[in-house]
Each structure stands twice: as C-alpha cells, then as structure tokens.
C-alpha cells in the first residue's frame, strides 16, 4: 500500500477514484433516486453524513473491534447512523423523506460506505479516514447531481423545480422513469471514459513540471 498525502486522501474519491463514475459502486441509489435535483442532493447529503460519521467512528474504534466481527461492527455503526438520518429527515424535511422512501434505509447496504470502512477507515488514523470519507461522499454527490440535473432537465424541463426550458418544451417523461436512469448513467460513463482517454493521450503537457503528479499517477 502506497503512502498518500492528506490532500490525496481527500481528492482521490472526488474524481480520480470517484465511487460511482470510476468504481461503479452504489449504483442502486444512483439509478433510483436521481430523477430530480432535489432528490439527488438529499440522497447525496444523507449518504455523505453516514459515510463521514461511520468512517470517523470505525477509525476511532478500530482497536476495540475484534477482527473476527469487524463486518458486524461496521454494519452496526452504519445502520445506527442511517436510522438517525432517516428519523432526522422525516422530522425536518418530511417531503424529501417521502420522495426518497425506502432508499434512505438502504444506505446501510450501500457498498461505498462499507467499502471505505473496510479498505480505509479500519486501518488508518481518524483524520485521514474522515478526509477520505469527505472525498468519497463528495464524489458520490457529484455523480448524483450530474444524474439528477440531466434527468430533471430533460424529463421535466426544470432544475430544482424551476422551469428553465420554457413552456414549448415537451418533457421526455422517460428520463424521470427508471429507463432514463440507465440511459443517463450510460451517457455519463461514456463521456467520462472519453474524457479520461483524452487526458491520458496528452499526459506530458498536463503534468506538473517537477513530475510530482506524474510519479503518483504512474
């Protein structure tokens, strides 16, 4: 395992190892609740909170959790956070909670969260684990926002509920239905892959002069 700087821990999950766009994790909520921007934001924030809270606790308690039951321990911590988020959303923003429905409870089994605990928080210092969780959580939110903005714009002609495409626009209803989620994810991954391959074609021009970044990327 390579040593990483705090900045790398933070930024890794945002873009270069984005949980959705690169690792293709957490696709269930990515497809299911991204039919509007508001839902994407709420789901992203809820997952972000659970991820950061769980990483903090798992990393703090890692010496107390015996190896044999670490998975049960992680799940217990994650499930506690999710239950709390679920109740808080229901008490504070009931309309959002209604729209997200069962998917809040399903954050428990979101593999992004368990993955970060197992791969990172359970063996790294607390500060780094929180940075890593913040990065991954932000990356997840960025991916959800891209999905949500695309789908709401085409499927409803609006963004965050405000009409932007005018009355003459005929909404593509399919974009806010489940197939629209698959189409959108496909196009976003296609675009992302295309962009990445372009980037790799011209590494020399883009890299930091001192070769710091290229060493890390190699």
């Amino acid at each position: 395992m390579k040593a990483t700087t705090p900045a790398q821990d933070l930024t890794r999950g945002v873009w270069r190892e984005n949980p959705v766009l690169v690792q293709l994790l957490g696709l269930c909520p990515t497809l299911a609740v991204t039919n509007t921007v508001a839902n994407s934001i709420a789901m992203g924030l809820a997952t972000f909170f659970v991820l950061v809270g769980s990483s903090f606790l798992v990393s703090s308690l890692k010496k107390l959790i015996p190896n044999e039951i670490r998975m049960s321990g992680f799940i217990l911590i994650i499930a506690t956070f999710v239950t709390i988020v679920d109740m808080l959303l229901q008490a504070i923003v009931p309309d959002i909670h209604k729209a997200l429905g069962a998917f809040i409870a399903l954050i428990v089994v979101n593999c992004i969260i368990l993955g970060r605990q197992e791969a990172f928080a359970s063996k790294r210092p607390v500060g780094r684990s929180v940075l890593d969780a913040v990065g991954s959580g932000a990356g997840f939110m960025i991916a959800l926002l891209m999905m949500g903005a695309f789908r709401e714009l085409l499927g409803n002609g609006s963004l965050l509920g405000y009409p932007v495409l005018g009355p003459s626009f005929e909404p593509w209803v399919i974009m806010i239905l489940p197939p629209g989620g698959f189409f959108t994810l496909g196009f976003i991954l296609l675009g992302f892959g295309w962009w990445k391959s372009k980037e790799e074609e011209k590494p020399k021009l883009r890299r930091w002069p001192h070769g710091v970044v290229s060493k890390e990327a190699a």
Partner: protein
Amino acid sequence: MSDERDDAGTGPNAQGGRIGRGPALSGRADVPALKLVGTLAIAGALAGMLIVTVYQWAQPRILAHQARVLGDAIREVLHDPDHYQTLFVVNGTLTAELPAGQDSTGLDRVYLGFDASGAPSGFAIVGAEPGFQDVIRLIFGYDADKGRLLGMKVLENKETPGLGDKIEKDSTFTGGFAGALSPLRGVKKGAGTGKDDEVDMITGATISSRAVIAIINHRLEQIGPLLGKYHAGVTQ
C-alpha cells in the same frame, strides 16, 4: 479491497499500511467467543440508546407533521368547514366519545365537518388500496344526505411519474369527484353520458384512476351505512 483483507487474514499482519492495529487483531483464533459476543452486545446496546434518544426528539415532530398534513387534507375535501370532529367506529357504530378504557389506536375513524351554524357539512374518509405500483392513500369528502362526494385528494402515491401520478396532480381528474353520485363509475374521457355517477378517468393512467374510484366505492360500501345512521342522529 477484498484482496487486502485476505492478506491480512492469513499473512503476517505487519504488512505495510496496517497502522495502529491492536493486539486483538493480530491472531486469528485467539479471541474467545465470549469476548466477541460481549463486544457486539455492548456496541448494540450503545447504538440502541443513541437511536432511542434521537427517536424521542424526532417522533413528536413526525407525528405533528402528519397531523398537520391530515388536517389540511380534511379541510380541503370538506371545503373549509368551521371545525371538524373525529368519529371512531366502535362495535359497528360511529361515536365521538370512546368508551372508558378504549384506546383510539388502530380504530377505524372518519372526520365529520361542521359549517358555521353548527350543522354537519360532510364526512372526510381516508382509504388506501393497491394502485399500479404501490398502495394509494387518499381522502375524500362525502355528503351522506345526498350520497354525493364533496372532493377527493390523494395523500400518498408512488404511481408512474408523468402518467399514474396524475391522479394526484391532474386537477381535471381530482375536480371530477366533487358532486359525483356514489357509487362511482369510471368512464373513459369523453365517453361519458353526463350521468351523475360518472367520473372521467385519465388517459394513460387507467389502472391508477380505477384504483382511486375503487378505493372510494369500497370504503363507502363498508362504512356508508354507519355514516347515514350517525348523520340522521345528529340532524334530528
């Protein structure tokens, strides 16, 4: 990430990156089962306490919100009554006063609205049945004297966005219930003959529209006779 774990399980744990591991993690079968169970039990108890704390804070707010939503819906389907009263179904009759010792939880109930002069203006009744995707929950106002509906509002639906969810959003459809004669009969849009018991269904959302009509009809079949009886008692 599973690869890393396999290494950790079988190989020496001194592998790079495994910083700060306690002695509990160093061996495989060293930890007695009792300790494992104990750790999980304590962790579970702590988690439970935390959840209960949050629950006690959140629950009153959740209930208050639900009550507010229901209250608004009742006023809407009864067209702004002066006030309304909750009636419970106990032993096959409607009553405003619960018998001593009876808990109101789980009892079927309706809401009776009154106009400014104190005369009953109609019942608001909640009903729920499966629609196209999931259960549709709705409330409707009903004038037991005339046997006509006063209004209908969908409280909860997960029908297809853009098609089935029109049962909640399409005001032509929801408005079609006001004044309709019970039992209702759903007709294709434009195919009606102008009879009072006809409700125009939504094109492209036939199943959802039918479900709404069925919910109202079933509910009135079940509870309608009680309403008539109670209503006669109040107005005499």
